[in-house]
């Protein structure tokens, strides 16, 4: 047990530091904090100009989506970059428990995603006048935690795919942009064509953002329990898929040496 936890926490955070490309402050601040901040301003002002939805609609949506920089890109890097550095061999030759190795990397990614989202909400409050009721803050935080967890789990699946796929960078970027369109970040799901909202409902963020909007407007946690539960289910599904794919790839690699080639 102790060994599992060691690999999970310590191993996970060291690997994250080694593989996450934007870890230095000079790269972290512009990418993880600067860009989401301006994204928030952009869409909120655009929504205002187009007379589309309320200001809070955009602030909640974009602040939660802000975690995607970490949870999608960061998580993908934390897994797929092993290939780039050639450290997959020594990892697989070790006796370490695979689920601890794989899931452990999600912890720093989750923490990072929460930090970014929180930063975005605070910016929304300071710059754009976001004022949820005092009683809404804790429920909102809870919903955000679940949603970021779900997005991180999605990133795990992408990371596993990235271990094998030739040009995963393209796929990760594509996923990021499609989430911007399908998950109700800036467009209510009801206004999207049927197939788009169907895809959105299978992706992370969608249910969490919907729940967060209601909570920010004053609804209780119990009221959005269904949405939150769905988001949690999605998180579990993606995490399991990512871990399973990782193990399948490892097995396949022992048969066909496919993970060595890069």
């Amino acid at each position: 047990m102790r060994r599992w936890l060691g690999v999970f926490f310590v191993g996970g955070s060291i690997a994250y530091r080694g593989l996450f490309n934007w870890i230095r402050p000079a790269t972290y601040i512009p990418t993880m904090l600067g860009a989401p901040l301006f994204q928030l301003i952009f869409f909120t002002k655009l929504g205002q100009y187009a007379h589309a939805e309320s200001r809070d609609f955009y602030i909640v949506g974009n602040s939660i989506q802000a975690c995607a920089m970490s949870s999608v890109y960061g998580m993908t890097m934390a897994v797929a970059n092993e290939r780039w550095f050639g450290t997959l061999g020594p990892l697989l030759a070790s006796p370490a428990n695979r689920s601890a190795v794989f899931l452990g990397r999600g912890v720093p990614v989750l923490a990072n995603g929460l930090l970014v989202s929180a930063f975005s909400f605070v910016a929304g409050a300071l710059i754009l006048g976001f004022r949820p009721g005092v009683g809404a803050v804790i429920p909102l935080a809870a919903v955000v935690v679940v949603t970021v967890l779900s997005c991180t789990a999605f990133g795990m699946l992408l990371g596993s795919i990235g271990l094998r796929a030739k040009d995963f960078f393209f796929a990760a970027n594509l996923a990021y942009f499609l989430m911007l369109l399908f998950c109700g970040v800036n467009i209510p799901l009801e206004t999207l064509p049927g197939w788009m909202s169907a895809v959105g409902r299978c992706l992370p963020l969608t249910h969490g953002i919907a729940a967060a909007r209601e909570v920010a407007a004053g609804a209780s946690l119990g009221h959005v329990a269904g949405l939150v539960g769905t988001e949690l289910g999605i998180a579990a599904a993606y995490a399991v898929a990512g871990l399973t794919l990782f193990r399948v790839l490892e097995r396949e690699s022992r048969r066909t040496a496919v993970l060595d080639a890069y």
Partner: protein
Amino acid sequence: MRSLKVVASGFQMNLKMLGTSSFFLLTAIVQPIIFATVAFYMFRAGGRNGTLLYAALGAGMMGVWSTTLFGSGGMIQWQRWQGTLELGAAAPPAMALIYLPFSLANAFTGMYAMAATLVWGRLVFGIGLHLAHPWLFVLALPATVIALGLMGLVLASTFILYRHANALSNLLEYPVWIASGLVFSTSLLPIWTRPISWVLPPYWGILAIRHAALGGAVWGPLGMVVLLGAASLLISTITFRWFEHAARARATLSLT
């Protein structure tokens, strides 16, 4: 004459490289289309249907900026990874001259972004391209694209010095969209941002393009575009020299 040849050959080579990269496909086609779609839905929800062309042109320009930005930064970073950055510094022609064609090629790939956005808008959202002043439009669009390319050249010079300038690229995408008033009016922004908007080529560029399409004064904004483009070119020759000197002093040309 030699300079023109350097520019021309660099231009050709860069276009070829960009044509084969999935990164290009992403920034020049996929990203603009997705952002345009979001903008279209947002404008449609607001019920301002007549302004969908406004949104289309703005979204297209957003794409031009993205390709310029990531292209310029990526070009230098790519050279750094390939180890050819030092070669460029050691070669006789001035660095600004060597990278000018790359920047221009990048900006022209931005035309793909504009074209993709307009075609997408027409096919999926029924946005017709009715131009009030067609000839001025044909003039304003390339002029703006070139000016943006030159703006990208100045950025590229900073990337020579800073190894992690890619992060800076991430940071500069949205702010330029915001300050240039590409898809919403700058009247929504605080007054102190006005001067920032006025020195950005895309601010005047989108005005020129928009007025050429929807009606309004084109020559004023167009003149500003040309002026700012020329200024960017001048600034870039200075900054290239500065930053290259600093990079050689700090020995960061070969580091990845």
